[in-house]
């Protein structure tokens, strides 16, 4: 079974600054997908970014980028130029086959 670990229950960042959220995972599979989801107070899960394990290049989506280290089984999310609207729970997720395995989440606070 795959496990996903997010070791930072809470993180804080000032507006316009950069923050990195950590995620590690454990799997014996070679073909899989990794995701970061954002869950604001509205509860709606929003896909932030995805990474295919077979791709060495790190995924980027505007202000969001990942640092994917396959050998280390590490998948961190970097948010640049943080905005107040980035405040939310962030979940790292592992996908292989069908359903997703989620980490416990990191609560991101953005201060003015």
């Amino acid at each position, binding site marked *: 079974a795959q496990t996903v670990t997010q070791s930072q229950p809470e993180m804080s960042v000032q507006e316009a600054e950069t923050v990195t959220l950590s995620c590690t995972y454990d799997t014996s599979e070679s073909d899989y997908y990794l995701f970061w989801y954002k869950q604001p107070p509205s509860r709606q899960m929003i896909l932030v970014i995805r990474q*295919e394990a077979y791709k060495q290049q790190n995924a980027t989506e505007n202000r969001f980028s990942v640092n994917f280290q396959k050998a280390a089984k590490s998948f961190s999310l970097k948010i640049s130029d943080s905005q107040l609207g980035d405040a939310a729970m962030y979940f790292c997720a592992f996908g292989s086959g*069908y359903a*997703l395995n989620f980490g416990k989440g990191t609560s991101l606070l953005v201060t003015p």
Partner: protein
Amino acid sequence: SAVISQKPSRDICQRGTSLTIQCQVDSQVTMMFWYRQQPGQSLTLIATANQGSEATYESGFVIDKFPISRPNLTFSTLTVSNMSPEDSSIYLCSAEGGPWDRNTEAFFGQGTRLTVV
């Protein structure tokens, strides 16, 4: 992309009763899932809703407690039966186009916040 409508968005129920949560997708999807998110916790998969057959339950979840229906490729229901306060959680419906590949994305409903008193 797919839009998922989940109803009700919240409910307060008496212990011992049952609640059925509905999940409607605006397009046909291969896979539908039900997750539970306990207060301040992560999402835990309850079951995979299979169209035309019984749902596949994860360890710790049983059909008698969480019966699931999936009559077609756009709709599913989850019933939380004989509720107790421990069932107080957010329940989320999710849909995917198929096994993970470069084009697959999971979509989520807005969740149902259930409080059992």
